[in-house]
């Protein structure tokens, strides 16, 4: 993607993260009220004390006494209100944000998310989306509050003594510019130097820890640890060199808070006397305390922006060419062949590529799958077996010809193709829910009897009973289920959905060999019982008796 396009896409994501005014403004109003109370508390206290020193009748002070107490209460009460309403708004927006990103993912998944397909990167994407709720909470609101309170205070001081108002304004502007731009530059320069060092160290640590057995066995551990120490030392030295820039922001704010105070003193002494003077001298301190939230907000902004960038890059707004899109005027041919069990799937010189790849992952595949056929598709690793499986369920687009019941698949709605051709994935996803829910979405009208029957057919009856029946949970990402059991659950789903054509992609990839043979046998015999056509993709050999034909992809 070009830089301008990434920027546009990032902006679109950020817009999605900012709550609408109706939700956002109450929080902001409470936040501003709290900050104004904080400034007013100090101003009123200063006024009260200096006025009292003039020893007026005590009645003259009663308003100020009430004000001081009210502002003290208001400051904390409004703050509490602010945090509640603004968090609530951020959470409301999170729902829209997640749904918005999700609906962009739907047409892409899974092939268009190839880069994020690995579990860790996927959770990174999800974390990034959730981190975007910091935009209203930690970026927009603190900045808006600081800006508004600063403006109100400058106007207030100005109305008492224009010169002091002007010096306060200048101090705020200069501190803001120096503290943000200046330290932003320093931080960016430091980051440019540190990021590659940090990345290299993290990579080396990961390599050592994950391969501790190999490194120990080959006597390579001491050398690797020494390399990690060297990388660590480089990073540490660079961090120390850069550390002088770290505290600049806080120091600048502290310095200019003082400058504003002294300036107000100098400006006020000749012309003002009494309470008003004390007020304009002390208000700058309180304003700068509110203004102190700006650096943190800018730090949060940098993080939010990179999260948004990562989301925008991982989930492009435009679907890449290799991913099939629904054509609006799809030909809804009448499809007698689709559901009546006589579907023939035919591939002629089929090829397919992954988004971003230079060369097609698979080319020149021709095969025919009629009801009752059980075809074993073999081929060395890297020959495009999984690519073919993803193409058959229209996760990837194709070149050449792929017909279902004589109709080109490209012309059919994707959902229609997938109602005919089912896929048991290499790593079937199990939802963190009960066994029942993990089956039911394949056919939501199924009764418990149906579910138990299909569990029995795939050989899981004993296992499910031992677990406590359909209500047993499968754990997060199927953590409580072994690779073989997951495959059987996937098969059970496919049987429930009753696909006329079933593609099974490497069912034994995560199963040890002995169980694998039994699993393949069970899948082939069970799946074929209803005259279903089965395409078994597997690099291991399959007994002749179980299949009707073999196809081998080139190496």
């Amino acid at each position: 993607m070009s830089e301008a396009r990434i920027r546009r896409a990032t902006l679109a994501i950020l817009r999605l993260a900012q709550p609408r005014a109706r939700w956002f403004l109450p929080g902001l109003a409470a936040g501003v009220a709290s900050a104004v109370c904080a400034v007013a508390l100090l101003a009123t206290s200063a006024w009260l004390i200096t006025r009292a020193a003039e020893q007026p009748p005590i009645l003259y002070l009663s308003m100020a006494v009430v004000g001081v107490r009210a502002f003290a209460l208001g400051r904390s009460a409004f703050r509490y209100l602010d945090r509640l309403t603004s968090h609530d708004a951020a959470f409301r927006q999170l729902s829209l944000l997640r749904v918005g990103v999700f609906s962009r993912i739907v047409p892409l998944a899974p092939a268009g998310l190839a880069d994020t397909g690995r579990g860790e990167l996927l959770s990174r994407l999800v974390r990034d989306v959730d981190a975007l709720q910091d935009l209203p909470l930690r970026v927009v609101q603190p900045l808006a509050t600081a800006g508004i309170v600063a403006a109100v205070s400058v106007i207030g001081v100005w109305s008492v003594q224009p010169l002091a108002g002007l010096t306060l304004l200048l101090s705020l502007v200069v501190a803001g510019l120096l503290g943000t731009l200046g330290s932003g530059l320093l931080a960016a320069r430091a980051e440019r130097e540190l990021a590659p060092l940090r990345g290299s160290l993290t990579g080396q640590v990961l390599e050592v820890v994950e391969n501790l057995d190999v490194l120990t066995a080959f006597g390579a551990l001491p050398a690797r640890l020494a390399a990690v120490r060297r990388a660590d030392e480089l990073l540490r030295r660079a961090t120390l060199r850069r550390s002088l820039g770290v505290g600049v922001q806080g120091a600048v704010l502290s310095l200019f808070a003082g400058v504003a105070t002294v300036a107000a003193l100098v400006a006020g002494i000749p012309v003002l006397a009494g309470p008003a003077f004390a007020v304009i001298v002390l208000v700058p301190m309180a304003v700068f305390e509110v203004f102190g939230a700006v650096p943190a907000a800018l730090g949060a902004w940098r993080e939010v922006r990179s999260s948004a960038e990562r989301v925008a890059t991982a989930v492009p707004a435009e679907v890449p060419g290799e991913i099939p899109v629904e054509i609006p005027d799809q030909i809804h041919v009448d499809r007698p062949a689709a559901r009546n069990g006589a579907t023939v799937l035919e591939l002629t010189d089929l090829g397919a590529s992954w988004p971003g790849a230079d060369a097609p992952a698979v080319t020149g595949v021709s095969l025919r799958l009629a009801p009752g056929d059980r075809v074993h598709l073999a081929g060395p690793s890297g020959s495009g077996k999984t690519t073919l499986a993803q193409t058959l369920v229209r996760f990837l687009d194709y070149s050449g010809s792929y017909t279902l019941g004589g109709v080109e698949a490209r012309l059919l709605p994707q959902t229609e193709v997938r109602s005919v051709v089912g896929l048991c994935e290499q790593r079937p996803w199990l939802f963190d829910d009960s066994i029942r829910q993990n089956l039911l979405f394949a056919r939501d009208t199924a009764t418990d009897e149906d579910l138990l029957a299909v569990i029995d057919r795939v050989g899981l009856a004993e296992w499910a009973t031992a677990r406590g029946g359909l209500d047993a949970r499968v754990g997060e990402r199927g953590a409580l289920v072994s690779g073989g059991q997951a495959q059987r659950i996937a098969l059970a789903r496919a049987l429930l959905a009753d696909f006329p054509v079933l593609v099974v992609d490497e069912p034994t990839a995560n199963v040890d060999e002995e169980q694998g043979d039994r699993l393949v046998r069970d899948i082939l015999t069970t799946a074929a019982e209803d005259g279903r056509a089965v395409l078994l993709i597997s690099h291991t050999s399959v007994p002749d008796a179980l299949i009707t034909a073999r196809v081998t992809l080139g190496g």
Partner: protein
Amino acid sequence: MRPLDPRLLRYASAARWFLLVGAVLGLAQTLVVVAFAWLLSQTISLAVLGRDPAELAPTIGALAAVIVARAVLVWLLEVAASRGAASVKSQLRARVLERLAERGPDWLAARQSAGVATLVGQGLDALDNYFARYLPQLLLAGIATPILVLVMLWQDLPSGITVIVVLPFIPLFMVLIGQATQAVQRAQWDALQRLGVGFLDLVGGLATLKIFGRESRQSDRLRAITEDYRGRTMKVLRVSFLSGFVLELGASLSVALVAVSVGLRLVDGSLQLGVGLFVLLLAPEAFLPVRQVGAQFHAAADGLAVAEDVFAILDAEPGGFGTTVASAPDPATIAATAALRFDRVSVRRPAAVPGPELSAVFPPGRLTVIRGASGAGKSTLIAALQGFVPFDGTISLGECTVTAGTPRPWLAWAGQRPGLLAGTIADNIALGESAADPALVRLSLRDAGAGDLDPETRLGVNGDGLSGGQAQRVAAARAIYRTRLHGCNVLVLDEPSSALDPEAEGHLVSGLRRLAAEGHIVIVVSHRPVLQGAADQVVDLGEAAHV
């Protein structure tokens, strides 16, 4: 939660250094705060009393100097925190890695290596905020608050007492609210956890949902999950934000109380304006560090959680073997004709069914296949041979008895997981050697059935760039290279052909036969009929199959 874990000081000397420097800077900062408040209140009161501006010039000058000093101290404290964090991270990282090297792979495997790697890599960065935002405030709360309270007591007793009375309420209420929050959180915890991962679950399972034509309805489900999440989280937040409320209220109320009481005493002339302003300025400063400590609770919790994880590794008991190096057989002293013997070897596993007992002889010049049902403990026995786990029984090579935890210069091994590193294929094959011998690399690749791979091909992290089968063959080639280069007596391959097509497997089998013919003890763990057919002997391991 303890705000500062003493183990941090024990394991990272840089933390001790930081505390010392931080305390000195904190003390200086406190003095500057007092000086600033005093000079400012003096200037204001003198000006209000109508003194000649020229007379005030020295005070204002001093004030300006104090302001500069304050900014410098703020800067220094942050610099110290950043340097301290960098050094502490380095020290902890080095210690953890040393500990891992000492304790060995089996010990690590029991602790989920991915988590450990993240912890040592980026996880430690959580200490940055702990050092930058939390610890300095904690120091100030310990140093500045008492000093400021003392100054207030000295200058104006009633104001000092007001602050002393209000201060203890803050921790008291925070503890009470903290307990209430915990109770609410406990009740919601499971639901929150589940709803928290709900989004990940949906995105991850999207391909599956699409296969079954369910993708279109998921937006509603996602909305419902997130709304439910919002409702429950807000319930928790309503309570936990109360602690922030108490902090703010304590601080601002005491300012208000001081202001009003000072004001009333000024009216009757029992107090001077300068003193009144002075205590008014000090009152919020006394609360500031306490408020900051509360506000940086998350920085503290994250940092301490990471430190806790690190200490858990550093303090852990050695799970496997100690670090004692017993007599390690030197390959030079072992005759090439020595056989490897397992005599009633079984692996000790705490809290697990004892593994099978193996007694077998692996003679040189023979290809032996070990087979057994999955879960029978084949790989664990190999780990015992490698010295990664403690075992009962005796393993001996020729005349030498092999003990756990000693180096194995006579052994070459390739595990089930290829375990390739970033670098060229040749670098990977010559792992642990200072330079690669190109001819031997090619020969080893050929014997592993990977003669088609170019040794100069560059691999990414984790051997990225190779298919599963190719990676497996490179890992086998690496073990073969070591066998040939060092004349290792024993070559062990664990499931070397599980991802290989029949042709590659055939090449591997002939390579292994060649190595056996050269007089090495070749041991292969495998189910594959082809390998079992090519073996000189097959050892069956335990019937205790777990499915």
